């Protein structure tokens, strides 16, 4: 059974001859790259402040799975067998956690109840519960993003409303002529709303395009910044549908309001009589 060495370790490349057979250790790839350590090298590990060090042979490297919760972690990880870690740290019979893999079809709930009923000084959790608890921070950040998105939509809608009003006022004269020659209000409504919806959707298309580019940049920048493979930003199909849906809705609402505002004008005044 392997154990993650959470203790702070001081690692130095060893050039000394080995006195006793060194135990194997697996290092995080980033640590190997930073310290130019290759598989088969011997490293000396010691606890901070300690004078004695232990020799370990690097048997391999591994990259930790992408974990948003550990993104700001600056320390590096090493894996060794539990007995080796116990010997190294002089602490026996201690583990941080034990994970269980159930046989297919096993009743997870009853096992959980049975384990927690033992009162052996631990608490058993489902993997999903642990994931939900540890992702609470990201739920909060997601709520923050939603609030900012709502403000962006409000700004965009107000921006569009101002432009549509400008456009409609510019068209007052020609719309007045259209009404005089018998074009129905319904048709004028349809044209103005269609134009507003088109304008909003062109904006949405440009926005989605910019979002795709920004998303790529964000992923590339933060992956490099945090040295991780995590996906920081993704544009999914429903985001695009939502963007066009909101744009169309805002377009219809603002187009209707603007046309209603326009029809309140006196036709003779519109035609300058």
């Amino acid at each position: 059974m392997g154990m993650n060495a959470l203790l702070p370790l001081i690692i130095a490349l060893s050039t000394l001859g080995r006195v006793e057979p060194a135990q194997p250790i697996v290092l995080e790839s980033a640590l190997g790259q930073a310290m130019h350590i290759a598989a088969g090298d011997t490293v000396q590990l010691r606890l901070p402040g300690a004078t004695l060090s232990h020799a370990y042979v690097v048997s391999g490297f591994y990259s930790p799975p992408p974990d948003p919760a550990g993104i700001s972690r600056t320390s590096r990880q090493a894996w060794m067998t539990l007995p080796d870690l116990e010997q190294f740290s002089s602490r026996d019979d201690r583990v941080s956690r034990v994970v269980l893999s159930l046989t297919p079809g096993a009743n997870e709930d009853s096992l959980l109840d049975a384990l927690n009923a033992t009162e052996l000084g631990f608490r058993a959790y489902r993997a999903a519960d642990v994931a939900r608890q540890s992702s609470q921070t990201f739920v909060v950040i997601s709520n923050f993003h939603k609030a900012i998105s709502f403000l962006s939509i409000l700004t965009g809608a107000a921006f569009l409303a101002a432009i549509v009003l400008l456009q409609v006022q510019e068209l007052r004269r020609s719309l007045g002529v259209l009404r005089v020659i018998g074009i129905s209000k319904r048709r004028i409504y349809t044209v103005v709303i269609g134009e507003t919806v088109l304008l909003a959707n062109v904006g949405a298309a440009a926005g989605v395009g910019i979002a795709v580019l920004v998303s790529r940049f964000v992923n590339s920048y933060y992956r490099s910044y945090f040295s991780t493979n995590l996906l920081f930003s993704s544009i999914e199909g429903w985001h695009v549908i939502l963007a066009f849906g909101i744009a169309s809705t805002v377009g219809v609402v603002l187009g209707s309001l603007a046309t209603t505002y326009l029809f309140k004008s006196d036709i003779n005044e519109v035609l300058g009589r």
Partner: protein
Amino acid sequence: MMARVAFRNVMRHRMRTMFTVIALSIAVALLADMLMLSRGMEKTFYRVLASVGYEVRVCPRGTLPFTTDAVLDESGPVVTAMNRDERIERTLSVLGTTLHVDSLPLFALGVEGERQSLYRVIAGRDVASPNEIVLNKNAALAFHTTIGDSLQLRRDASSAVLAFSSTRSMIVTGVIDIPFDLPNQRTAILPLKTVQEIRDQPGAVSFVVAKLKGGEESFAPLDEQKAVAASLAAKFPDLSVYSMDELLSALQRQLAYFKQFALILSTISLLVTFLLVAVVLTIGVGERRGEIAALRSMGFRRRSIQSMILSESALLLAMSAVFGSVLGWFLAGYLDHILTQSPSLPEGYRFFIPAWREILMAIALSGAAGIIAATLPAISAARIDIPKTLHEEVV
């Protein structure tokens, strides 16, 4: 004169002005909030560090205080070196660990040092002997204890197997307040040696902090902090030594996302302000070409026309500044409420701290963006071909 004309022009299209001001107000509010976000975290970190009051921190290599379970196994040489340094007034050694009272975990801090400023005793008195303990309000409430009661502490959670494991009886002598406590966290302060004995780690500490001479009311000068930190780092290359600025930047690195988010959103807010003013004024000038040509033919100078357009922009921005400031102030509280729902945040931690400095800065930046955006339509209005425009507009 031109300002009055500009005011009438803006008020002539109230609906349009209203929507423009709404959009600009949100942009100003967002900019102000992002400036607050950027500064709020710095202010909070500084406030927490200032309340603790120590300038130099020595931690296990690559760690920050309380971010890992890592400890300095042999803290004696560090404390001795600090005590020998004449620039250091006092030190405080801290060992943080989780202990248990029955099955309830308790975050215990073992401390050793004179005139500590890590916590404040709000009732009773501080610990003075090895078997004394002070609790924060959460712990006192959870364990139903008052001053003078005794508390049985265990290293591990109680269980059938560990029923015979040793417990340590402690007397509660006071209730404390710790500035960086987590909400709902049960915290206790004990003598350092007691915690080391319970953990069976004599000499171990989580970190050692030092207060420099000459800065009793505030912090010692940064240069002196750096010099002390550098000399300790040279003596103990296996450890991480932080002066105040190094600690602040290390803490801020962990929240770099928010800083960058604030920068990006601030830029977008300014861009929106620029585009909005430019588009609204450009279309407005196009709509009023005849009117502008008439004014020019009546003898109004180009400069007057330019100042009229710039005044219109300034007026829109001034209205937006008023609404945006109010919106930004309240929005900061709302956004802060969302972010502070995050678990594991110290009590009193703020992301957004409403401040006039940031509001004024947002108004100044938005104003500058708006005036720059108005320059092009203003120049275009001033250069209108008078005969041609009058001919087109009238005929």
